[in-house]
């Protein structure tokens, strides 16, 4: 098969799949094409969409590729049809998700230790939304439940994989910078005063 044809097949599959498609799943369909070829054609296709300022784009999300609309055109979509959007996540939910995303697998007690508040209700809500899953029990007395984030979590936040999140160290450094600015400001103020 010609590259152009393979690319067209990939595009077709992306269009129809309804969920993010991994390179391996494409490989299952296009048996004779090797993985690296499929991957490079994915990139090409992605690039082509970008080049012709299409309203659509190909995003790398939840471990695969998917055709998606651009967020800046959301207004037009909503004008065309009533879009049912779930309400945004609450702050406690986001906080709990952040802790789990970085520390998974994690038990409830550890989450509550960081947040300083009971998190039972929040965790249940996130399980219902399929943003969290139970992946087993920790081998300690009481065998507490271990939680982890799901594929839906990656999809919801537009992440390819969990390591796409900025590292916690980056947050610390960012904050430290803030702090050093404020301290140096404070110092310069005292300098002026004296």
């Amino acid at each position, binding site marked *: 098969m010609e590259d152009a044809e393979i690319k067209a097949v990939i595009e077709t599959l992306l269009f129809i799949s309804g969920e993010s498609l991994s390179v391996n799943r494409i490989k299952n369909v296009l048996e004779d094409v090797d993985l690296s070829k499929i991957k490079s054609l994915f990139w090409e296709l992605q690039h082509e969409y970008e080049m012709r300022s299409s309203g659509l784009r190909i995003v790398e999300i939840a471990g695969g590729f998917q055709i998606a609309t651009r967020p800046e055109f*959301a207004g037009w979509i909503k004008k065309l049809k009533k879009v049912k959007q779930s309400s945004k996540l609450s702050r406690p939910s986001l*906080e709990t998700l952040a*802790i789990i995303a970085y520390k998974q697998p994690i038990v409830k007690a550890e989450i509550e230790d*960081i*947040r300083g508040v009971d998190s039972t209700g929040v965790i*249940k809500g996130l399980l219902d939304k399929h943003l969290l899953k139970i992946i087993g029990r920790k081998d300690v007395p009481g065998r507490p439940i271990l939680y982890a984030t799901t594929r839906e979590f990656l999809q919801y936040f537009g992440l390819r994989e969990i390591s796409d999140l900025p590292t916690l160290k980056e947050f*610390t450094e960012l904050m430290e910078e803030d702090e050093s600015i404020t301290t140096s400001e404070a110092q310069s103020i005292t300098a002026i005063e004296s």
Partner: protein
Amino acid sequence: MSYQVRLEVFEGPLDLLLHLIKKDELNIYDIPISTITQQYFEYIDLMKELNLDIAGEYILMAATLTHIKSKMLLPQEEKVGEEEETEDPRAELVRRLLEYRKFKEAAEDLCEREDIWRDVFYPKNEVSSEFEEEEVMLDVGIFDLIDAFKEIIQRMPDKTSIDIIPEELTVRGRMSALIERLDVTGPEGLTLWALLEGDTTRRAIVVTFLALLELAKLHLIRLLQIEGDDTLRICRISSNDEAGEAEGGDADDKETD
């Protein structure tokens, strides 16, 4: 049903402390413990005034702060020749605050991502919705079933029944009855309401409910919910899909009955 009332935007004692530190531009590594303790107590008093149920976590933090404050007031014994530095009584609290703040930042980052990505839409999976009608339905979890059950119990006319009928209600028996009914109705299944029509007592509803849970666990039935509608439907998992499993299950039922 319980309602959670939030005072301003604080999600807990740590969040409140961080807010106080930020508000007064205090140095997190050198918190003026007596000022912050005082402010903390002012908030607790405000919460009391507003008649809010103050969560135990807030009280615990108040105790911690008071404890640190009293420790700070004690004169430090300086032992000559002993290099070992006594730990700042605030150290543990600072560590927790820093840790919590890190995740607050991370949550902020997720919030920004959410803002962008909830405005991204994907092509719908038209192929499967045309050929497998079931896929339009959402598989629902046990929690949805429990919610529905709660509603049924609430809707039940609460007249106390005087007749005492020694009915033989067993979960096993009900399971077989349900399966028989569902086998007759075919793939579209029955709504939860329809299934419970005959049950007039709380006891009967509970037995049916337990039977449904058991059947769901054995993968003999499927709980479905049409998107946007909160009616639960119960369907038989078609026997040609999982013939072996289903048959086996039935056989077990009969043996134990």
